C-alpha cells in the first residue's frame, strides 16, 4: 500500500504553497520530506490529512481517494498526523491524552459511557498497558500523570508522537517530531521510528529540519523548494545533490534542530 500524490496544488491568494507535487510514499517505509522554511511541507500535510484540501490534483491511500475527505475520516483510514506546534490536549495528562487517542468510537457515546461494556473496559485496560509501554520507550514514563500544558516543548513533541502511535496508525505523518526534543530523546525517537517500520511495517512520512536525524532513518527523501518537488531519492544521493545543497545553503543556511 502507498500514499500517492498526483499533481497536488494548493494556493493561498497569490502564493503557490504546493506546486503540482506528485510523489509515491510506500506505507511501510520511512520517507523524509525536507525543504527550507515556507517550502510548503506543512501545507502538504494539511492537504493530505483533510485539514486544508488541495485546489486540484488527487491524493490516494491504498485504493482509496482521500482528497476531500474530512480529517477524522482520513485518520480512520490509518493516516495519523502530528502537529508542528505541539499544543495537544492542554488540560489532559499524558496518560489521558494517550488513552483518548486509543478510545474506540463505540465507547464514545453517552450510552457507552453509562453502560461501560465489558468490551470497552478490556479495550481501556489494554490501552493503558500500551500507553505505559510507549511512554517508557520514549523515556517519558515519569510524565504519565503530568498535564500536557505543564510539559516542556520537547516533551510535548514526544507526546505528539506517542499519541499518534496509540491511534492504530497504518502510516504516520510527523511534522518536525525532533524539534525542541532533547538529544538523548531524539535517539530514542529515531530508534523507535526505525523499529516500528522494520518490525511492524509501520512507515512514516517525516518533516524535519534536523537533517542528521532524518538521513539516518529515512529510506527515501523528498526535497521541497518553494512548493515544488526539487529532488527525490535515497539519503546518500540527496546529500550529494548540488541543487539540494544550494537550496539549503543558498537561503539562510542549513536549519538546525531547534528551528
Amino acid at each position, binding site marked *: 500500500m502507498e500514499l500517492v500524490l498526483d499533481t497536488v496544488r494548493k494556493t493561498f491568494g497569490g502564493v503557490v504553497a504546493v506546486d503540482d507535487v506528485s510523489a509515491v510514499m510506500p506505507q511501510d517505509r520511512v520517507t523524509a520530506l525536507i525543504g527550507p522554511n515556507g517550502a510548503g511541507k506543512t501545507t502538504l500535510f494539511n492537504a493530505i490529512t483533510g485539514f486544508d484540501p488541495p485546489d486540484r490534483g488527487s491524493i490516494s491511500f491504498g485504493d482509496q481517494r482521500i482528497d476531500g475527505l474530512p480529517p477524522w475520516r482520513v485518520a480512520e483510514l490509518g493516516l495519523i498526523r502530528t502537529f508542528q506546534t505541539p499544543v495537544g490536549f492542554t488540560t489532559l495528562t499524558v496518560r489521558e491524552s494517550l488513552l483518548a487517542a486509543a478510545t474506540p468510537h463505540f465507547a464514545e457515546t453517552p450510552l457507552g459511557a453509562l453502560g461501560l461494556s465489558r468490551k470497552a473496559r478490556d479495550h481501556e485496560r489494554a490501552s493503558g498497558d500500551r500507553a505505559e509501554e510507549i511512554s517508557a520507550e520514549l523515556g517519558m514514563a515519569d510524565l504519565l500523570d503530568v498535564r500536557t500544558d505543564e510539559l516542556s516543548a520537547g*516533551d510535548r513533541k514526544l507526546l505528539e508522537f506517542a499519541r499518534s502511535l496509540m491511534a492504530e496508525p497504518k502510516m504516520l505523518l510527523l511534522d518536525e517530531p525532533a524539534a525542541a526534543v532533547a538529544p538523548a530523546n531524539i535517539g530514542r525517537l529515531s530508534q523507535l521510528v526505525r523499529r516500528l517500520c522494520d518490525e511492524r511495517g509501520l512507515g512514516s512520512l517525516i518533516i524535519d529540519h534536523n537533517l542528521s536525524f532524518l538521513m539516518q532513518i529515512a529510506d527515501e527523501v523528498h526535497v521541497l523548494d518553494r512548493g515544488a518537488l526539487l529532488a527525490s531519492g535515497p539519503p546518500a544521493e540527496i546529500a550529494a545533490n548540488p541543487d539540494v545543497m544550494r537550496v539549503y545553503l543558498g537561503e539562510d543556511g542549513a536549519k538546525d534542530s531547534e528551528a
Partner: protein
Amino acid sequence: MTNPIFWVGVLTLAAIYASLAMALNVESGWGGMWDLGIAGLLAAGSYCYVILTADPDLGMRFAPGLSMWVAWPLSALFTGLVAFAIGAPALRLRREYFLITTLAFAEIIRQLVVIQADLTRGTLGVPNINRPFDSFVTGRDYNYVLLGIAVAAAAVMYLVTRQIGISPFGRTLRAARDNEAVALALGKRVNRMRIKTFVLAGVLIGATAPVYLFYIRAVSPQLFAPGITFTVWTALVIGGLGSIRGGLAGAFVLIVFTEAVGLIEVDPSHINILVAIEPFMVGLLLVLVLRFRPDGLFSERSAFGAGNRPAGRSAGDSRPAGAAQGSGG
C-alpha cells in the same frame, strides 16, 4: 429564625438548581459548548409535561391526561429532541455565535409558548401541576416529600454525570474541547459527539423540568426568562466549571446565600432596596469565590488525573543525557 418549612423549600430549590448545573456541566464544562439556552430547554420539558398531564377540563386543545409517570420520561425525551433541533444547526457555529444562538432559541421557545395559547394557555399559565404522592401526604408535610424528590433527582443526576465525566467518553469530550484539530487528527467524530452531548444535556434538563414544576406548582412563560439560565451558570461557575461536584456545591451555596439575603430584616419602606441589592450580593459572592478560588470551589484539575501530582519538568528538559545524536543539519 424563620420556620423550618422555609428552609426545606430553599434546599428543594437548591437541589433543583444543582441538577440543572450538573447537566449544564456535561455540555459546557466538558463539552466546551457554552449553552445559554437552559431556560428554553427547561421550558420545552416543562410544557411537554404540563400538556401531557393537564386536566382536560382546562380546555387546552391537546390534553391526553397521561399519568405523570409516563409524562415524566416523555418530557425528557421531547427535550432531547428539541435540543437536537437547536444543536444540529447551532453547533456548526463558533463558540461565541453558538452562545448567542442558544440564547435566541430559548427566547423563541418562550415566545412560542405565549403564541400557542390554545395549546399552552399562553400567559394565563397552567395552575395545579400534578405532583407525585400528593394524595398520600398533604399540607405542609408535602414539602418534605418534595425535598426528598428533588434530592433524589440531584443524586441520580450526580451519579449519571459523574459516570460520564470519568468515562472514556467524557475524556474524549474534554480532549476535543481542549484541541479540536488534534481530536480530528486522531479520527474523533467531534461534531457528531458534540451533538450527542448536547442532546444528552437536553434529556437531563428535560428530566429535571417536572421536579421544577412540582416545586413551582403552576407554570407560565415568564418562568423561563433568561434569568434562570444565568442562575444555573452562576451556580456552576461558583462550584467549578468542568469539575464533578461543582454544580452540586455551587447551587447549594448560591441558592442558600440568595435566600438568606432575602431574609435580612429591613424596615418595610426599604424593601425595594433589599430587592435591588440581591443581584449585587450574588455578584459579590461570585467575585469573592473567583478571587480566592479561580477554578471554583471544586476545580476540574482536582477532579481528574492531574490532581495533586507534582508538576512536570520545566522547559529546558533536565533529563539525564544518554547517547546524544543528531544535533543539527
